[in-house]
């Protein structure tokens, strides 16, 4: 594609190696993007389930989750709408813990994350295992704000942030890939920001 007449890079290059192609550093702001009305949720009534093709389907209450071994993520997040936010801190539980407790069956190869709003997003199990995915309820040491998915959201920071389902309530293990909400609506099935997998066909 040709150069755009009159357009030049304005932003500093310091974060360049941390910004995937087409992304910019949003700094201290954290844009709110979701497709549905923000639900008003009572954490005391919250449950989080792991089911589908697993040996031990399980459901955790809010207080059950708090008692699990904690795990934190410190690093960057990348939204498909082109903002990235650097050096964020989330805390909760590693998805590895839920995998160990529920034991996915050999034929399980994909996971569909469900939100209480009906939102879904699909991921290969490999993308939620190995210390790369969390269920989190804390952001920068404080409770996760409701508009950002509080009380509980999935966090898969190595993929575009629509994979990090807000208000997550269930991980369903599947043998076949089943496209989630945005994946049915034109977004890429996997969503690797470093490969700029934004939309179908990328």
């Amino acid at each position, binding site marked *: 594609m040709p150069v755009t007449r009159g*357009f030049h890079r304005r932003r500093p290059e310091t974060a360049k190696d941390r910004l995937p192609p087409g992304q910019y550093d949003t700094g201290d702001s954290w*844009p709110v993007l979701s497709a549905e009305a923000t639900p008003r949720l009572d954490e005391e009534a919250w449950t989080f389930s792991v089911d589908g093709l697993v040996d031990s389907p399980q459901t955790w209450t809010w207080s059950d989750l708090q008692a699990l071994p904690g795990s934190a993520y410190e690093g960057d997040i990348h939204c498909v709408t082109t903002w990235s936010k650097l050096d964020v801190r989330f805390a909760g539980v590693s998805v590895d813990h839920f995998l160990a407790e529920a034991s996915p069956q050999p034929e399980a190869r994909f996971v569909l994350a469900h939100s209480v*709003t009906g939102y879904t997003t699909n991921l290969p199990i490999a993308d939620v295992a190995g210390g790369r995915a969390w269920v989190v309820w804390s952001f920068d040491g404080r409770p996760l704000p409701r508009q950002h998915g509080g009380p509980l959201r999935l966090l898969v920071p190595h993929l575009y942030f629509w994979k990090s389902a807000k208000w997550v309530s269930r991980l369903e293990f599947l043998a076949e890939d089943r496209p989630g909400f945005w994946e049915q609506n034109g977004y890429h099935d996997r969503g690797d920001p470093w490969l700029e997998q934004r939309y179908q066909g990328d």
Partner: protein
Amino acid sequence: MPDASTDGPGVSRWAEGRIIEKDLPSPTTVRLRMHVEGRSRHVPGQHYLIRLRAPDGYTAQRSYSLASDTDDPLLEFLVERQPDGEVSGFLADVAEVGDVLEMRGPIGRWFTWDRHTPAVCLVGGTGVVPAVAMVRTARRLGRAELLRVAAWGRGPAELPYVDELQRFGASIAFTRTSDGSRPVGPMTPAELAPLVRDAEIAFICGSARFAEHAEGLLAECGLDQGSVRVERFGPTG
């Protein structure tokens, strides 16, 4: 959440779009009308990506909602100039008629009106843009009775397309400076209820703060949360 509409092609490619018309309707907005050769048809509510490319290969892209109906020979965008906005500032200050920009679209199959379902739009500020596309499509199809629009702005000068929306019969609320037609202030549930009564789907578009307020109003009017589709925007340059 209902099933998403399947309108629109699944895959879109980058193409070149030429600016045919440009004006600055207000100090904070720029309106562009663009030609994209051989573009796909779109449905109201969809958006396009616009990408700028610097000589060193650096690119910046943002998504902008369409204001135009698909039968319009050109694509129309109304872009708000963000403080220090990398793309919006370029479009407002540097871009000229005849310039060619990288474009990709139409995108989005969720925040779209199927042109058959009774719908209500609650839109604020430059969030009116997708509602304008819905209004234009409804008029073309002779289905204006299916669409109700409630639009908020600080004042008449700060609400894009206010004349067009008023001609359509939209309910307009000014929150800072009045045009005398109603008291200054946000729309009340009582004002909104008649617009929501027959709606089977609601579209909210505006800032995150506006969207939260509009969601609450719709809930007060008794609309099922599952019927609400929201497009929020923030400081994204």
